[in-house]
């Protein structure tokens, strides 16, 4: 087994960007403030100096315009990585993503692929209030024609980008803004690209399955730790891919534990958690000993004060409580 090294999630993204830019001349990074500023979350710091303004392409504030330009460039021989500063601003580019990126291949009868990677920071937890704390992963996961992934671990932040670039179709990478400073391990050498199709079991357990993704993986693991003290042994699944969803991994776990809790920072109604819940009961109904529980964000625009914001989003305590409910404890 290869040795590991510790870097931050931000460094992992930056390293992956640098590698992609070095390996393939067709790759370029485009977005607001990716240049001199180094990216709103400093992911591209230093890359302008290294690769120049043609390939580290600062854009005006024009989300629809530059995402559309990324689609056109992808259709015409380039491998653009478009950074949308945060998911909040992606609402301005949804028409391009849905009606062009995701759809042109089918509409053209397979003539044109769109090998585009879109990265964006997502999520709440930083007291940025209602307009800057969105989790619209569920909207993206609804769209046929795109792949949606969400790195929770540093190794995935490092490995998902090369895998996304290798995909001939559009891939959206959702980076949780609270994770950039988190440290983790990546292999010291060898191929770092990861398999985008598979969910990962982050903790094995036998009593209940917690299914989640992105920053909530850590919260789920914390909940599992706490529950271990109560002799409740949780399995924690990191979805990794939100579209397509790796049913097999989820179902195998639920067939073992007979209980499931889905954790999602999106609002509860019509979110990712609903989909996972529906899939579990569709495919493992007779294996379930209790209804699938959902732990999601409360249905309120995210408030600014920390105590309200934290009360609005999932917490290890609310996750643990849901697990206990499935076990009727």
């Amino acid at each position, binding site marked *: 087994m290869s040795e590991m090294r510790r870097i931050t999630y931000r460094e992992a993204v930056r390293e992956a960007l640098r590698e992609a830019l070095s390996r393939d001349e*067709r790759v*370029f990074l485009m977005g607001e403030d990716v240049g001199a500023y180094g990216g709103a979350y400093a992911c591209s710091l230093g890359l302008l100096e290294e690769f120049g303004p*043609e390939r580290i392409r600062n*854009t*005006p504030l*024009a989300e*629809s*315009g*530059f*995402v*559309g*330009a*990324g*689609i*056109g*460039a*992808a*259709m*015409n*021989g*380039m491998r*653009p990585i478009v950074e949308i500063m945060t998911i909040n601003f992606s609402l301005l580019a949804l*028409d*391009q993503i849905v*009606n*062009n990126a995701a759809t*042109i*291949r*089918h*509409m*053209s*009868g*397979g*003539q*044109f*692929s769109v090998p585009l990677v879109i990265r964006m920071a997502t999520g709440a937890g930083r007291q940025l209030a209602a307009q800057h704390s969105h989790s619209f992963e569920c909207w993206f996961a609804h769209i*046929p*024609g795109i792949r949606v992934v969400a790195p929770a671990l540093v190794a995935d932040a490092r490995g998902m980008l090369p895998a996304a670039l290798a995909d*001939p*179709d559009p891939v959206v990478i959702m980076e949780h803004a609270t994770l950039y400073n988190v440290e983790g391990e990546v292999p010291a050498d060898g191929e770092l690209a990861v398999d985008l199709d598979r969910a990962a079991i982050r903790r094995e357990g036998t009593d209940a399955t917690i299914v989640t993704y992105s920053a909530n993986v850590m919260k789920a693991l914390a909940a599992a730790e706490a529950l271990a003290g109560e002799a409740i042994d949780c399995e924690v699944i990191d979805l990794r891919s939100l579209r397509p969803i790796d049913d097999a991994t989820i179902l195998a776990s639920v067939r073992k534990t007979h209980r499931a809790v889905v954790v999602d920072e999106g609002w509860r109604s019509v979110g990712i958690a609903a989909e996972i819940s529906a899939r579990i009961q569709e495919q493992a109904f007779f294996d379930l000993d209790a209804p699938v529980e959902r732990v999601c964000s409360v249905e309120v625009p995210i408030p600014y004060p920390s105590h309200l914001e934290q009360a609005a989003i999932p917490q290890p305590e609310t996750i643990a409580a849901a697990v206990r409910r499935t076990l009727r404890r």
Partner: protein
Amino acid sequence: MSTAQERVHLSHEHALRLLREMLRIRRFEEKAAELYSAGKIRGFLHLYIGEEANAVGVMQALTEEDAVVATYREHGHALARGLPMGEVMAEMFGKVNGSSRGRGGSMHIFSAPRRFYGGNAIVGGGLPLAVGLALADRMLGRSCVTACFFGEGAAAEGEFHEAMNLAALWRLPVLFVCENNFYAMGTALAESESNLDIAAHAGVYGVPAEVVDGMDVVAVEAAARRAAHAVRQGEGPRFLEARTYRFRAHSMFDPDLYRDKAEVEAWKERGPILKFHDWALGSGLIHESGVEALEKEIAREVEAAVAFAEGGAWEPVEDLTRYVSTGDEAAA
């Protein structure tokens, strides 16, 4: 001033070619309207009748390496760009031998071999795409032009402005062609734009713009050649506003109650085919017998296109989910 590339060579052949291309579109669409009534073509059908001079004129200025982006009113552009008529008709039938395997229909004609990038039915949505196509050409060192067609209605959409700014800022090889037919569905230009001078919206970005009589195919060709030449020379984007008119309703669903009959008639008298035909005939560039032969030839082409479409197969229902992702065309 004008170089060889910029000048329009109005030889006998070229005149005949311009007339042929316009007539091909006209006859094709007349047939399409018929087939729509017959239920062979469904969904939305937006006829280009009256506007043929624009697509035909602009395409003369493009090479095979250039790219084209169009709207839902794009049969004319597709034909003028050289897509086989049968494939376009079959697409409108929804058959597998259509240009997009029938998946797209009238509004989504695509062709990789012709670098024809749709067929975009979201107003304004094609402009950022064109910017990206041009960006890739520039980054890859190709000296291609991307011609992007859209209606004057698009100028009110934010995307128009975002795209114009990006193209100008990055000096990209885009030839923007606004087909100003003075109506966006039932909304007259004056109801939608505070400034009736659409070209001014390019000018403010520093994109040189020219207004041209979109009913005059030679004028359009000449203007397009000048503009495409500048774009190809690396001078950045150019903007052409072709003032034109649609003789038919917006789509087959439109009862067309919002336009003055007299206005429509006045424009019809300036019809691009009528006008060019009369002028070319008068100046001796073409002859009545030549036109008759042309009409016959085109009638045969249209007939063959319909037969091709009729003869096409339907995509098997089992293949419904193909073409969503790359690689799945191999399935089934």
